[in-house]
C-alpha cells in the first residue's frame, strides 16, 4: 500500500484544501495521473499521483483543509494482493484533525465519492461532478469541461446549473490574485530576510541568435515556431548543468545540488500575480519540444491548471521582462532555490566588433544568487556560459 499525501507545493505552503477528487475507490491510476485538485494560495493545483496501482480508499473529504503531508488516499500499488477490507498501512499515521472550510456550515461535509459507476463512458468527468449533474438533472453531454484533459469538474456543473457563461469568459479557475499576492509576499520577504543575495549583470550580443531564430522560424508554420524565451531557458539549463552550484535547494543550513534541472519559468498572470512552475528536465529537451512544453505550461498556468509537480520541482528560475521594455531586471530568489536568472530587452547598441563600431542587438542577462552557496566569481562564469551558449544557438 502507498499513501497519497497532501504535497508541498512551495516553500511557504503549510496546508491545502482538497476541492476535488478525480478518482474514486477502485479506479486504476498510473504514475503521473491527475487524481485530485487542491486549492492553495497560488490557485487550484492539479495533483498527480506518484504510484501506479488502484485507489483503495479515500481518506479526506472534499472542502477539507489539511496540513502538508497528510495522507489523502491509499493506493494499492501494482503487484500487491487484494486483502479485502481497505485499510491504511499499519505504519501510516492517522490523518491529523482537519479543518473544514466553512463554505456550507449548516451541512455536514460530503462523502468524498458516493456515486455509482458512470452509466455512460467516453466523457471525462470527476465523480463529484457526475453526481452533481445527476442531482441537478443536467446533461453532461452538453457541458464543456475545463478540467485536466477537458474533464468536466464540479465547477463546470455549478456554472452550468447557474446558467453562467462558459469558462473562457471567466477569470482563470482557482486563481485568487489576492491570495497569490499574499503567497508572493511571504516567499519574497523570506527570501530577502534569509538569503544573502548578490547580483551580477552581463551583456550579450544576441544578433546572431536573433538572426538564427528568424531563419528557423521562417521555415516553420506558426504552431512550430520558437520564441527567444525557449532559447533563454535552454541556455540557462545547460549552463546549470556545468555549474551545479546554481541548481538545487538550500535547506537546513546546507546546499543540496539537484541532479535534475527543472527550470522554473516566471509567468505573469493576467490581472496581476506571478507563478514560476517547472519545465522539467529542460537541459535534455530539444528546443522544439521545449517550446511545446512552454506553450502548454503558459496556457495551463494562465488558466489556473498548474500541476503539483510543476509547483514543487523548480531547481532554478528564469524571469524575463524584455517584452515590457525593461533592459535589466534584478530578481529575488525563490526559496529554497539558490539562483534566478533575468533576461532583459534586446536593444540596438553601438558595439565594437573586430575593432570597428557596428550596430548589434544586445541583451542584458542578470543573475541573483545565494552567497551562502556561491561567490561572484562562479556567478560570473555561469553568466558568461549562458552568453556563449546564446551566441551559438544552433548548439542549444
Amino acid at each position, binding site marked *: 500500500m502507498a499513501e497519497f499525501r497532501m504535497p508541498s507545493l512551495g516553500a511557504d505552503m503549510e496546508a491545502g484544501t482538497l476541492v476535488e477528487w478525480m478518482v474514486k475507490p477502485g479506479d486504476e491510476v498510473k504514475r503521473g495521473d491527475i487524481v485530485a485538485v487542491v486549492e492553495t494560495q497560488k490557485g487550484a493545483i492539479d495533483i498527480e499521483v506518484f504510484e501506479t496501482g488502484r485507489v483503495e480508499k479515500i481518506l479526506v473529504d472534499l472542502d477539507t483543509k489539511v496540513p502538508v503531508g497528510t495522507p489523502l488516499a491509499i493506493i494499492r500499488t501494482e503487484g500487491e494482493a487484494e486483502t479485502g477490507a481497505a485499510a491504511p498501512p499499519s505504519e501510516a499515521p492517522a490523518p491529523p484533525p482537519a479543518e473544514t472550510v466553512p463554505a456550507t456550515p449548516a451541512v455536514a461535509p460530503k462523502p468524498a465519492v458516493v456515486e455509482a459507476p458512470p452509466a455512460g463512458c467516453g466523457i471525462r468527468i470527476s465523480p463529484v461532478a457526475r453526481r452533481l449533474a445527476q442531482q441537478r438533472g443536467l446533461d453532461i453531454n452538453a457541458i464543456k469541461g475545463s478540467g485536466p484533459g477537458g474533464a468536466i469538474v464540479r465547477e463546470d456543473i455549478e456554472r452550468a446549473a447557474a446558467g453562467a457563461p462558459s469558462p473562457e*469568459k471567466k477569470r482563470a479557475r482557482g486563481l485568487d490574485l489576492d491570495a497569490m499576492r499574499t503567497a508572493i509576499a511571504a516567499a519574497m520577504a523570506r527570501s530577502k530576510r534569509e538569503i544573502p543575495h548578490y547580483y551580477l549583470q552581463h551583456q550579450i550580443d544576441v544578433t546572431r541568435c536573433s538572426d538564427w531564430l528568424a531563419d528557423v522560424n521562417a521555415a516553420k508554420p506558426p504552431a512550430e515556431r520558437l520564441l527567444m*524565451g525557449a532559447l533563454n531557458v535552454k541556455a540557462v539549463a545547460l549552463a546549470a548543468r556545468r555549474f551545479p552550484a546554481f541548481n538545487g535547494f538550500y535547506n537546513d543550513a546546507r546546499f543540496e545540488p539537484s541532479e535534475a534541472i527543472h527550470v522554473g519559468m516566471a509567468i505573469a498572470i493576467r490581472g496581476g500575480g506571478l507563478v514560476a512552475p517547472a519545465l522539467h528536465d529542460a537541459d535534455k529537451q530539444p528546443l522544439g519540444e521545449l517550446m511545446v512544453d512552454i*506553450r502548454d505550461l503558459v496556457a495551463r498556468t494562465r488558466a489556473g491548471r498548474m500541476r503539483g509537480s510543476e509547483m514543487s520541482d523548480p531547481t532554478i528560475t528564469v524571469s524575463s521582462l524584455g517584452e515590457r521594455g525593461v533592459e535589466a531586471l534584478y530578481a529575488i530568489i525563490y526559496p529554497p532555490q539558490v539562483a534566478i536568472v533575468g533576461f532583459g530587452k534586446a536593444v540596438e547598441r553601438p558595439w565594437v566588433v573586430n575593432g570597428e563600431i557596428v550596430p548589434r542587438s544586445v541583451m542584458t542577462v542578470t543573475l541573483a544568487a545565494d552567497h551562502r552557496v556561491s561567490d561572484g566569481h562562479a556567478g560570473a562564469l555561469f553568466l558568461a556560459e549562458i552568453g556563449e551558449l546564446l551566441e551559438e544557438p544552433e548548439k542549444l
Partner: protein
Amino acid sequence: MSDIDIRAVVLEELSNIAPEVDMSTVNPSADLREELDIDSMDFLNFITAMDQRLGVNVPELDYPKLITLDGAVAYLQAKRSA
C-alpha cells in the same frame, strides 16, 4: 469570407487570449499588445489560430501588420483574397 466574418474570428481568438476584456471596447487602431496586455506567447497563439482557422500563415516579418485590429483584418482579408 467577408471582412465582418474575419473580424469576428479575430475577435473570438483575441477574446480567448484576453477573456476579461470586453472586445467591443477595443480601439481598432490601437496597438493590441498594449490594448490587451498581450505578450509574444499570446501573439504567437493568435497567429497560430489565424493559420488554423483562416488558413493564413503569417510570416514573422509581417507580424507588425497585424498589430492593430483593423490592420489584422485587412491583412488577413488580403491574404485570403490573393
